[in-house]
């Protein structure tokens, strides 16, 4: 058994064929020349066949355009499977690494409270003090087994008003007193030495001390979902239930609100996802399900804060962020309380007088454009780990099953990136992200009921699956889905609903052996 068999499996008609031979490219060169001419004369407009471009590059460089199935992240793929698997630069890094190292250092940096001398700007309210606290080892966050989120790492709560969206941006509107995110930490009180049950800093002696906005707790004592297998056996899924306590200083409990728990996603490959051409994503979209396959796929048009217009969203659990530039600076502000060139005002709603008073402790923006850019560069160039166990017959069978039950309708197994100016590392790479970056209705059981731009309360973006099999190794858990409710891959599959009903029932109809093979394939990613 060799890897080649696995290489050639699973490329449905909708996908370009992986690893084509050199001879095939040679035969198509006359056509490619036409494409090249078209490309040059039309200034590279969208719609130019990306396969053709890859072929031209291949013919000029003498390298095969797709280095093979193991190379999940194209030529940048890093062959390393240990706790550092998500935390290495792409292998094909063309720069000297200084900017990558700098970005990495800021990613790992523990920020301290506003008003300090060095690395200051944390808060006044925040969720955690550094990027890596939630993205440990550049990997995935998880909810606590139960109870308070206060000391848990890697999950936060998005908030918004019910039934309203911003007339300009089309996005959700934050709560008057708490904003768009529950910051369950504040830069502290002087006395007493702990907050009281109302999060009140009674006796606080200075303006530089801000209590948290509140706290959330989770339990798994709510409704259950029972999934049966045709071949026998059932799995019971526990639905998380969240409860909240609110700071009376900031107005106490809101009368109504939407919320969405979000775990921290892994970092590897984000630059490659950003490099997927819009035309490719739009080509997958089928919002009206015109092919009647039960799977639609919708683009989320979201607000680009830099250019003040609506653009295609691709990051976040609801594809609600258009770019890493905006995603990263949004996280600096929303999660850590650090102001940046893009979001230069501290995150203090007008009712939070203590927060507003403390916010002047460090001049805004607290990070410079070059720091923001180095973190941006870093998040673009973290390598995707290679696939493993490719020649295992079960893994090969598992990949066939993945396609045959139509998981690949959304989890796209092979994608070609476009041109990224200045970053050849990310350009024209065949990647295996297993996502279409589109929104899909995932049914009522997974719903958060919180619309986010064009995504309704039941819609979620297909998450990439690359690296899935190494999360346990890196992060010591395998809590999956947007809120980490699924314990492992099997539960994650069984949580799928809505448009994914067909694929999920396909899984339920498989024999135990085939289900195990499919999971073994997913673990090889």
């Amino acid at each position, binding site marked *: 058994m060799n890897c080649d068999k696995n290489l050639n499996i699973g490329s449905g008609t909708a996908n370009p064929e992986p690893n084509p031979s050199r001879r095939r490219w040679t035969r198509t060169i006359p056509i490619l020349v036409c494409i090249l001419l078209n490309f040059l004369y039309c200034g590279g407009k969208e719609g130019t066949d990306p396969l053709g471009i890859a072929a031209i590059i291949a013919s000029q460089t003498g390298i095969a355009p797709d280095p093979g199935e193991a190379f999940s992240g194209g030529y940048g793929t890093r062959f390393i499977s240990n706790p550092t698997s998500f935390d290495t630069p792409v292998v094909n890094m063309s720069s000297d690494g200084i900017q990558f190292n*700098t970005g990495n250092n800021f990613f790992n940096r523990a920020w301290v409270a506003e008003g300090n001398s060095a690395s*200051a700007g944390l808060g006044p309210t925040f969720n955690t003090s550094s990027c890596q606290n939630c993205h440990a080892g550049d990997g995935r966050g998880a909810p606590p087994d139960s109870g308070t989120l206060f000391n848990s790492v890697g999950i936060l709560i998005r908030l918004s008003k019910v039934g309203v969206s911003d007339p300009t941006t089309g996005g959700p509107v934050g709560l008057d007193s708490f904003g768009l995110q529950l910051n369950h930490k504040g830069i502290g009180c002087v006395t007493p030495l702990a907050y009281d049950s109302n999060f009140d800093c009674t006796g606080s002696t200075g303006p530089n001390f801000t209590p948290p906005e509140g706290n959330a707790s989770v339990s798994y004592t709510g409704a259950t979902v029972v999934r049966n297998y045709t071949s026998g056996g059932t799995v019971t899924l526990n639905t998380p239930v969240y409860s909240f306590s609110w700071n009376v200083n900031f107005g106490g409990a809101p009368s109504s609100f939407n919320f969405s728990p979000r775990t921290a996603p892994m970092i590897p490959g984000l630059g490659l996802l950003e490099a997927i051409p819009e035309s490719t994503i739009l080509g997958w979209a089928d919002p009206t399900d015109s092919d009647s396959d039960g799977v639609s796929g919708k683009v989320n048009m979201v607000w680009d804060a830099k250019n003040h217009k609506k653009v295609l969203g691709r990051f976040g659990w609801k594809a609600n962020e258009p770019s890493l530039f905006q995603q990263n600076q949004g996280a600096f502000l929303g999660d850590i309380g650090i102001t940046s060139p893009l979001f230069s005002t501290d995150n203090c709603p007008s009712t939070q007088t203590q927060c507003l008073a403390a916010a002047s402790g460090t001049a805004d923006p607290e990070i410079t454009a070059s720091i923001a850019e180095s973190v941006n560069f870093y998040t673009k160039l973290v390598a995707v780990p290679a696939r493993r166990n490719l020649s295992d017959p079960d893994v090969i069978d598992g990949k066939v099953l993945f396609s045959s039950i139509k998981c690949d309708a959304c989890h796209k197994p092979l994608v070609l990136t476009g041109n990224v100016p200045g970053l050849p590392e990310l350009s024209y790479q065949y990647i295996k992200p297993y996502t279409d970056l589109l929104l899909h209705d995932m049914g009522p059981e997974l719903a958060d009921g919180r619309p986010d731009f064009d995504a309704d309360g039941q819609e979620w973006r297909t998450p990439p699956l690359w690296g899935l099999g190494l999360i346990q190794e890196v992060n010591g858990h395998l809590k999956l889905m947007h809120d980490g409710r699924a314990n492992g891959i099997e539960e994650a599959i069984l949580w799928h609903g809505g448009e994914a009903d067909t694929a999920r029932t396909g899984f339920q109809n498989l024999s135990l052996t085939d289900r195990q093979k499919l999971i073994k394939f997913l673990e090889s990613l």
Partner: protein
Amino acid sequence: MRNIHTKIFSILFSMTLFSSLISCAGPGSDNSAAAALLGLDIPASATKPQFLNRYAALAFESYTQAELDASNLSAAVDTFDSNTNPSASDLTNLRNLWVKARASYLITEGFRFSNGPIDNDTVLQCDGTECEGLLNAWPLDEDAVDNYIANGGNSVTSFASILAKIGDTSLGGEADPQADKIVMTGYHPIEYLLWGKDTSNTTAGVRPASDFADATTNGARRRHYLKTITNRLAVHLGLIKDQWDPAQTGNFRETFLDSANVNTSVGNIFQGLGSFMAGEWGGERLTGVIGETQEEEHSCFSDTTKADFYYDAQGVLNIWTGNYSIQKGVNISSGPGLSALLSFKQQGAIQSEIESSRNLFCINLSDTESADPNFTSSCASGSLTHRFDQAISSADSQHGILVNVQRLIGSTLNRDFVAAAAAIGFSVAP
């Protein structure tokens, strides 16, 4: 032993000669080509066990000096604590002793990341936790230290009570089980207490001695806190030193030198130094060069950040050459360094790169660095003579020196080091 020394001398001599040859050849010259031209390739001059013995001795000597200097500071702080109204010169005396203690500690930083006692808590724990974080964590939350002193009552004299406060959100930082916690101990809190906040880029912090007077609010508590954490700093350094002490049994040194562990020990040293270059010395410490904000200065209270780079380089150079040196050009002891495991052709330009990255920092600030072992008023042309918190800005005429040194350490030196390790079969991951 005599033979080894002679051999090292000849290699060092020829390396010096070689360095001058390649520097004359100008940019683009290829070391191996030059060596081939000269017909030179002196074989490795030490075995791995010989090198490891020297490394262990160097570690012991380095931590012994660091502990000694910290103890001298600690003893002076004890006297300071007993004075209800310390004078400006009492405070200056402490600052000078801190500068010396800091220099000898920084020289030990090359031993980090190598699975040794400094930062591997399965080898050694200081008060129940990994040692390095208690000694040298950064950035400091000054409010947390101030709040603890203001609220700590009599408990400020107990190290255990200070330790228990690490992670207490009420002090100003956050409690996070997996992350760096509030920095309450080590060189930087001591530095903060001695100098105070630095809000200027023309001076260091200007805390008055009266901040420590009994008549001042929290003055006595501030002295007690300073005493408690300085005493403990010396104790922790002693614990690390003991792990390298040849007179003790059952310590890390024994495992490290065990004949069964030779390749593991050498591999850990290569990996550790590689991580130190790319991640810490040429990475973390120099991030301000790209960030360009004064807040990125590490020793920001004392404005002694240039010394951080200088002695980090000296520490790496010591491990590379096998010489223990603090003052430039003065070797206190010698033996086979890491370079002795490599043949002449495999050395690359590593030694000259380390020396260049050291010499780019001139220790010339008379207000804060006059007690430094390498303080000088005559700086080599092209070296960084400005204050670090000024040069960190691209508007400063010497900013380019910092950019170049970051590239030299984090990129050129690191690349050459990885190649040298690979030449004798050790892989250094990024």
